């Protein structure tokens, strides 16, 4: 499977979850695991550009696909991705645990809908839980990310 543009080894164990393979097999610990039953969205990654829950997929199912994790949004040392920059400016994160999921959802959403309405933003992020921010600054962050992406 290809992860963040690089061909990386598959999971050896057929029952390994994609989330566990990314985190513990490949050391990409930016993908977080919050509920392991597909509700919280912390483990969201992009599979061929579309958001998926990596805790609801086996790693072997990603074979032949392209996975993007939060580490793939901006290379080390290079400027932040517009979504990352916007979350920073708007204080869209506190503990940072849910943040990778929100960032990947935002990145994918704005590619499809570069100029979203407030209702569309709420809808887009309504598959991700955040327990710290109360969402107001996440909404602002997505709006700001749209501006920065233009």
């Amino acid at each position, binding site marked *: 499977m290809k992860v963040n543009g690089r061909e990386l080894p598959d999971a050896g*164990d057929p*029952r*390994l979850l994609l989330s*566990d393979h990314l*985190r*513990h097999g490949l*050391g*990409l*610990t*930016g*993908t*977080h*695991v*919050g*509920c*392991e*039953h597909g*509700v*919280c969205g*912390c483990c969201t990654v992009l599979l061929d550009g579309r958001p998926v829950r990596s805790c609801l997929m086996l790693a072997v199912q990603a074979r032949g696909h392209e996975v993007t*994790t*939060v*580490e793939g*949004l*901006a290379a*080390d040392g290079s400027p*932040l991705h517009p979504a*990352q920059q916007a*979350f*920073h*400016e708007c*204080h869209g*994160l*506190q*503990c*940072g*645990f*849910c*943040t*990778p999921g929100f*960032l990947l959802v935002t990145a994918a959403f704005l590619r499809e809908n570069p100029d979203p309405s407030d209702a569309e*933003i*709420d*809808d887009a*992020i*309504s*598959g*991700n*839980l*955040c*327990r*710290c*921010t*109360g*969402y*107001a*600054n*996440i*909404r602002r962050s997505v709006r700001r990310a749209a501006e920065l992406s233009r």
Partner: protein
Amino acid sequence: MSTRFFGERVERKEDDRLLRGHGRFTDDIGENALECAFVRSPFASARIRSIDVAAARTMPGVVAVYTAADVPFGDLDLPLLIPHPELTQPRTQKCLASEVVRYVGEAVAFVVADSRYLAEDAADLVEVDYEPLPAVVTPEVSARAEHLVHADVPGNVAADVTQVVGDPDSVLAAAPHVLERRLRIERSAAHPLEGRAIWARWDASEKRLIVYDSTQSPTSIRGGLAVLFGLPETSVEVIAPDVGGGFGPKIMLFNPDELLVPHAAMQLGRPVKWTEDRREHFTAVTQERAQVHEVRFGFSEEGRLLALDVDFLHDGGAYTPYGLILPIITAAQLPGPYRVPNYRVRFRDLYTNCTPTSPYRGAGRPQGCFVIERVMDAIAAELSLDRAEVRRRNLVQPDEFPYAVGTMWQDGGMTVYDSGDFPELLRIAVEALGPKPEGEGIGMGLAMYVEGTGVGPYEGAHVQVLVGGKVVASTGIPSQGQGHGTVFAQIVADELGVGVDDVTITSGDTRRFPWGVGTFASRGAVMSGNAMANAARAVAEKAKRIAADQLEADPADLELAGGEVRVKGSPGRSMPLAAVAILSNPLRYAFGGGAEIATQFQPRARPGPPLAEGDAPGLEATGYFSPVTGSTWASGCHAAYVQIDPRTFSLKFLKYVVVHDCGRVINPMVLEGQIQGGVAQGIAGSFYERLLYDEDGQLRNASFMEFLMPYATEIPDVEMHHIETPSPLNPLGIKGAGEAGTIPVAAMLASAIEDALGVRVDEMSLHPSRLFELAKPR
């Protein structure tokens, strides 16, 4: 003092790592650690007949299986964290149950294996033979004491505490109006998105234990592990790395894993890690809130509260490790911002066969706030007065501070409000809320609160200017997202006249700062913030002393600004802070970085020994802050318009206003984030999330599929206003802010729903089906 950064919306210094996926949460630490799983009780109350671990032990990939019989501390009761003389029947659990289990989720056995997958497989092979017993689930059932949670605790009563202020009996007897209410609040749970996790490594050659723990108090964990394992404290290091939210339960100390993981690491000679899953979090992590209050209150024709009598039951769960803190807080500050001249409060802390309780954001305060605000609304309804007007007539006035409530506070002292302006909070809230919008099913909600924040005993900080001129500072308390790395840097930067980007904060790492208490009770900014200021001020004094010798000036004429120590009003007479840091450490060897200026053949500015008598090398200092007693009292007012859909009984916020006073504000951006997040958690616990225990003590909705944590679609943007009444109790004048957002939400929502539906609301939490029942014509 310069106030360049204090009060500014400084963007967070901790964001970059977290945004790039380079945070370091406990489960991110691997190092080939063995992984673990627990066998937990499926019964709320049962006797254990036998435990058979043979099949698990022999499973390939399993390294060890522990029951109580297999660990040297198997018979030990876990610590009673906060003893209290009136907690007459304290009980704490054992690390692993071997005879009796008292709640679903209580740990029975612990499996260590090559991977989590194998550990879970092996846990399934552990055979435990239980004899189920009747479960005691609600506080009311517990009070009836038909069954006992602990056979040797009569009546299920851990404590029965009464406090009296004034003469409530005779005033109630003579009051023109007397009403009674029974106000019931259900359990809630914090659910940080990162559950609990712990990683430990034993360094056999140095005999050192290193522990990473997703905890709110690494210093306490360190102390406890040193005692348990008979190690010098100096050989145990505990680090709370990035912590993915806390909200209270992570202040609960000595969960079984916190003993078993380090023990296994020491015994097995390999790093060992345990990461909780969400289902475990639902039953094994402490919860809060369930209380039933019998309330009787008397008031005048003008709506002035004359006397209040509250008798409440606190559902303490199966054990009382956290002592009586929760009901004590409810009892102490239940009067809120109002004058209650005659007040009796009695509570019984009761055992139930449910998960034990410990503070969750608000910690006893939301319940107290709910009671007094329901009282205010009841008075308004009875006398046909405006709800805001009734509150106005009862508020403590700005000239009455310090204001003594007359009750015992959670630190052992008395409850005394330090400062505030309650009428102003109410005035701004009512004005900002504006007129009621047109429409069906719209209700106005109003609630005020006080919050005792920043309790002692103390916190400390270490501040050091490095030889390159950058500053590092550390404190014992960890952050769970509150922005310590930014707000403490603002405080230190101002004191030392450097940029906020020049300061790096480490928090919650005993290797850097071994002393302190923890992050709880909205105390981080008050306690560690003031300790940071004290330490940084001492560093500034030292820098002036050293620079004065070099600049041939009086230290009193010096100031720190722009990364320099300079003579006030004399441009050019200055030296960089980096040079002062170098000179603070007299050298024989120049090791680069400009160090030659401090070596022995350089001209010396001052006679005497190179290190002045009584001085220490290094431009560094340690500072502490420890209040004599008492809290800094934050306060606020929430007001909102909600709309209840007449067919679905769903809830919509049309406008939500918060007016907040936490003294001097360090960083408005961070503060507003705390408040918005607190409101969201309050809404969540009041209308969406419930803990549905059945009569057997089974939590029937232990997953995020059925425990409805709100998404963005349920939470409104809150309009915020601040007033600042500085606290006289600390040099920076600040008060805590972490929990405030949550405290009045349930009370406000009850008020709003009552107004919208014209029904009486005596309970929390609510949900659409319950509103449907309440609104049904009788």
